[in-house]
């Protein structure tokens, strides 16, 4: 088990290999289909800091945040997978979700020293490891707003790193 705490350093990410099981702690972001294109637009317009968002060394968990808890949605949805490169350029280090992603996306994030990790949809377990939930941007999107949460030892498996994927068979 490799322990990572946000903000995650470039060196720690560079060491990760496909198949590594990691334990993630610290503040992370949560966002999915509705909000990620908006965050990408902020990055493109260089307005991310206006919202007080710093993605350097951080993690984006592809989930809604509702009273029912949190759990990964499929990361290969167009709006979500389409955010990987822009978020990585802004310093994000781990895209956290589920499902296979394309080789093009894997190549793009690898060049930016970012990785993709998958996490089982274990809402009850994650609930016991999540605290300090707050909305970071776009509150009008409700449970699909960009959230910031504090997590303690989220276990995930590295599914894509350094141009390789765990789904290669």
């Amino acid at each position, binding site marked *: 088990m490799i322990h990572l705490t946000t903000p995650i350093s470039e060196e720690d990410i560079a060491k990760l290999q496909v198949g590594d099981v990691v334990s993630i702690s610290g503040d992370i972001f949560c966002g999915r289909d509705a909000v990620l294109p908006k965050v990408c637009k902020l990055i493109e317009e260089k307005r991310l800091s206006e919202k007080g968002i710093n993605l350097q060394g951080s993690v984006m968990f592809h989930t809604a945040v*509702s009273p*029912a808890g949190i759990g990964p949605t499929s990361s290969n949805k167009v709006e979500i997978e389409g955010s990987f490169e822009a978020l990585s350029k802004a310093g994000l280090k781990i895209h956290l979700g589920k499902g296979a992603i394309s080789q093009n996306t894997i190549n793009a994030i690898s060049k930016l020293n970012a990785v993709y990790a*998958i996490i*089982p*949809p274990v*809402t009850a377990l994650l609930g016991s490891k999540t605290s300090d939930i707050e909305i970071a941007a776009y509150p009008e999107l409700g449970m699909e707003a960009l959230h910031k949460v504090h997590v303690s030892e989220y*276990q995930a498996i590295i599914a894509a790193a350094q141009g390789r994927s765990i*789904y290669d*068979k």
Partner: protein
Amino acid sequence: MTNNINMNEVIEKVAATLVTAGSTFREDQKEAYRRVIASEKMESSCWVMQQVLENAEVAEKSRGPLCDDTGIPHVFIEVGPNRALTGALMQSIKAGIREGLRRLPGRPMAVMGDDYARIDQSRGLDPDSGALLPSPFLVKEVDEDILRVTILMLGGGPAIRGITQRVFHRHDVSIVIDEIVKRAVEGVKNLGCSPCTLAVGIGRSQFEATSLMMEAMAKGNYDVQSEFEQEITQKVNEANVGPLGLGGKTSVLATFAKIGPQRASGVRIVALRPCCCFEPRRASVEID
């Protein structure tokens, strides 16, 4: 008899049953996981299934959701020869579902607005978990002298990957099985949240096949598998999709199939749902 039924008691029982359905693995379900964890050789796949089982233990203790997609409530009702299902009782069951959704809590995902707004979701979601309406009830008469309500919580991922479509059987069962396996492998691969339980209904129309599939989900047992069910499970597992698509021999824990009366023709209508790693999320209660 329904005249003596205490409706407040029905609401309370149904609410508690919904919470159980959304939060609790049945013993045969836990045992199915223990069996595959013991036999799976791929380390990462084993890790996923251990996490799923650990998650179920935490959810059961807290009576909280197994998954953040808490699902759409579906209701299967069995009515014995001397029991009656009245409109008032159905209203109480609905009230129990509303209460159960608030207690679980269910994800607030009732889509608001008129026909158009409900399709394009332009008026947003109702913040009240209890506003989520159940699907139409499925009712079946049974020999047992009971009135049993089973609540199933059906998530969105399996709904996206499920398929109800014809198969031309050419008077050969293996053709039907092979087509089910082909569709199931595709569904399991795309679902992500595996290992799955396959729910299958085979009937004369889309409605009948889907009703049979619902019954299979409501009544299926991991410890009791027919030859037909075992063959499908085994063939899908040969595809090596594995938990979360990571590979290994456990893509599917079991198959729950219900084969109804069939049409005198060359076609069979097959309903298939690749239930996710927590499904079928279900619990039953008898109404006295």
